[in-house]
């Protein structure tokens, strides 16, 4: 029996724990000092940009274009499937650990069509808790202490702490702007092939690729992917390819899977996400796809950490995939209709930002846009924090304009922060009313004094 008194108030859950509190609050530890601190593997990994900025932006009066959180509705059939599924008893109990059978089957069909090769649903796929979980399983399975892992800057922030948690060393290489800092498009941001080649050595275990890219929205071209592939093959390096935004590519662009290049299937783990595919980030389902001899190690990590993902969510996702698999040659397929919907939001956002005097970098893919704020010449030198300019700018913008974004230097290693501190990132997968509210702020930007 739980040691609790029977008095409790519904509205605050103030469970009076008389018996419990007597022994808990007043129990003193032994007179010896408490030696239990964190393990070395998580040393320095506790700080997190989201913790800092989502708290600040949680105020409902602030228009939140910061965290990558869709506020649009997921497609109705996706929600309906989950409702149906929850009523089926056996679907509320454990399923196959490495992925619910109907889901891995659906994934294998969809990706066989995309990749043009046979994908075994049982051995070549692992379903994880979000793409995050796939990144974790991949890195824990295949990256050894002392290995080096190449990370392209700016990078999705979790790559660095995950690599460090595995005891490996992140080696950074920045995307550089082609036209002397005058960037109109995400395509202007490129890797220097010689610089990239220099980062590879015998200790390089893997390179993490993210295309379409968060935060810049770059969609790597075939030529760019070939440069990376050539180096991976030459140095016998793995490629961890984070392709969560694979369906979100805009007109004139094509998402290419590096795993489909010659010599790459056998050294690539490709990661996908239900959250991004179906606008259901709260479902936390992702997957890793690759050759059996690599995926089997991810499966071992998975069976020794979370073991299995939620059944009803996987079943509902499988049903949704069947719906769209059947219409993959049809423009109404959600994989294409979502990107069309987002393209018009992208264009609207870009227009509003330009009118406010800001310089957006138009993304070729994804649902983020980076913006050069230096043109506004907002003087924040009197703000005597040691933070980079973009952190100060975002905090100022939240306080004075009630609009939030994320500072770009959060996505860079220490040495590159200076290069990116004039940029902030906006998320545009937002419903019209949110964008309307942003429009009001941006149109009135110059009318208020900062």
């Amino acid at each position, binding site marked *: 029996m739980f040691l609790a008194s029977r008095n409790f108030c519904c509205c605050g859950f103030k469970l009076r724990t008389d018996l419990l509190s007597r022994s808990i609050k007043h129990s003193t530890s032994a007179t010896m000092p408490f030696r239990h601190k964190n393990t070395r593997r998580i040393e320095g990994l506790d700080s997190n940009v989201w913790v800092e900025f989502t708290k600040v932006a949680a105020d409902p009066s602030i228009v939140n274009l910061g965290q990558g959180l869709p506020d649009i509705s997921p497609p109705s059939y996706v929600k309906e499937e989950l409702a149906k599924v929850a009523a089926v008893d056996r679907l509320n*109990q454990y399923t196959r650990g490495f992925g619910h059978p109907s889901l891995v089957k659906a994934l294998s069909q969809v990706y066989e069509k995309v990749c043009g090769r046979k994908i075994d649903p049982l051995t070549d796929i692992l379903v994880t808790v979000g793409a995050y979980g796939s990144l974790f399983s991949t890195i824990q399975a295949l990256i050894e202490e002392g290995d080096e892992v190449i990370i392209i800057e700016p990078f999705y922030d979790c790559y660095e702490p995950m690599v460090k948690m595995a005891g490996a060393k992140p080696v950074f290489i920045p995307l550089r702007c082609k036209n002397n800092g005058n960037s109109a498009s995400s395509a202007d941001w490129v890797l220097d092939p010689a610089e990239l080649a220099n980062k590879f050595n015998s200790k390089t275990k893997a390179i993490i690729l993210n295309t379409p890219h968060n935060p810049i929205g770059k969609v790597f071209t075939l030529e760019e992917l070939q440069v990376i592939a050539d180096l991976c093959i030459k140095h016998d390096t793995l490629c961890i390819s984070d392709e969560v935004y694979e369906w979100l590519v805009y007109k004139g662009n094509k998402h290419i899977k590096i795993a489909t290049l010659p010599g790459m299937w056998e050294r690539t783990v490709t990661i996908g996400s239900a959250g991004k595919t179906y606008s259901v980030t709260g479902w936390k389902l992702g997957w890793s796809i690759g050759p059996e001899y690599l995926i089997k190690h991810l499966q071992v990590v998975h069976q020794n950490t979370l073991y299995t993902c939620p059944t009803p969510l996987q079943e509902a996702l499988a049903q949704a995939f069947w719906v769209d698999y059947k219409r993959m040659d049809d423009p109404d397929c959600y994989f294409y209709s979502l990107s069309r919907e987002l393209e018009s939001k992208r264009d609207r956002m870009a227009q509003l930002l330009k009118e406010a005097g800001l310089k957006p970098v138009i993304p070729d893919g994804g649902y983020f846009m980076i913006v050069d704020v230096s043109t506004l010449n907002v003087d924040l030198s009197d703000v005597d924090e040691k933070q980079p300019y973009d952190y100060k700018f975002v905090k100022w913008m939240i306080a004075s304009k009630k609009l939030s974004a994320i500072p770009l230097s959060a996505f860079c290693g220490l040495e590159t922060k200076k290069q990116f501190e004039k940029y902030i990132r906006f998320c545009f997968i937002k419903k019209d009313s949110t964008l309307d509210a942003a429009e009001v702020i941006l149109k009135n930007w110059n009318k208020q004094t900062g």
Partner: protein
Amino acid sequence: MLRRAGPSLRHFLLERNSSAGHSSCSREAKMSRPVRARRLEGIDKNIWVEFVNLAATYSKVNLGQGFPDFPAPDFLTEALTRALGGGNHMLHQYTRAFVIIIEPFFDCYEPMVKMAGGTPVFVPLRPNPPKDGKLMSSADWQLDPAELASKFSERTKAIVLNSPNNPLGKVFSREELGLIAELCVKHDVLCISDEVYEWLVYDGKQHIRIASLQGMWDRTVIIGSAGKTFSATGWKVGWAVGPDRLLQHLRTVHQNSVYHCATIAQEAVAQGFQRELMLYGKPESYFVQLPKELQQKRDWLVQSLDGVGMKPIIPEGTYFLVADISPFKSDVPDVPNSDEPYDSRFAKWMVKNKGLAAIPLSAFYSEAHKNNYTNFIRFCFAKEEATLKAASDILQKWKQKKTSS
């Protein structure tokens, strides 16, 4: 309505078994450098991968893997439906050290400790059968205090406690917990307390939380599970409770591994708990009803097993029980020098030949001790009456076959 669903697990695995051998990259070269990280050494085998597969392929009655085959309570699934229909579509958006492990143990403790680079140190619960020939209770399996004390050293970082215990069903008494607590305090050791079956205790027994003992709150992480609390194992929502100075480090790991858990499942579980708080201690409380119902099922299965000559150990808690299958050993001859423990071969034979799935007790022991108790298998009784009756029928027929032959 699910006719267009993908195949069921059984159908799917049968399909795969028949087309086994197909590989998608049989002719493509692998990387030449070694790929697998050293932290995965020796932890690739997994009892569930093997036995869940077997059960799905062969069993007609599955009392193996621990999941209820009766529905989750309506108020919980209704909570999920409400959450889904509530119009809030934002619910679809964004949630060279030693560790002592008491045997038998839930199998994942050992590989998890190893993956963290720790060294598991095992201490067994030892059976002390009652002298009057009555059936054993899980209470009769006990730690030897001197033996336990000998396992603690200055390099001991933590002890993993599981009460109520899977697989035996033991509910540690206040005295037994006191013993463990004293040693933890004396040696400054953490306690990882797996209490997922906390609401499933029978015969008026009390589940005592070791964190409530003197000196223990500050050094204990308590683990709970929605799957076991609300009979919804497929929702995969669990929690850790403890002092901030320990929990902060769990949060760091969490934010660098999965970061969030499924929002909608958490919302529905929260509503489930709200309802239970309102009904706390009342007869309609699920926490009162579920153990009452399961106790009956326990007693039913105990009777069935005893009736055919298998000797069940009556569990004080959880929805598992372990039974001694010695009278049935003649059906599965011993194979000298076999790598595989006897009970494992017995369980495999039983599922293939009798269609009844259970889990061998050796699955819950370290490699070195797998052959210590080879006559026991574990049954799960969180099952519909029809399932338990079907199990009883299989056992009866089996016994009849033996006595007549």
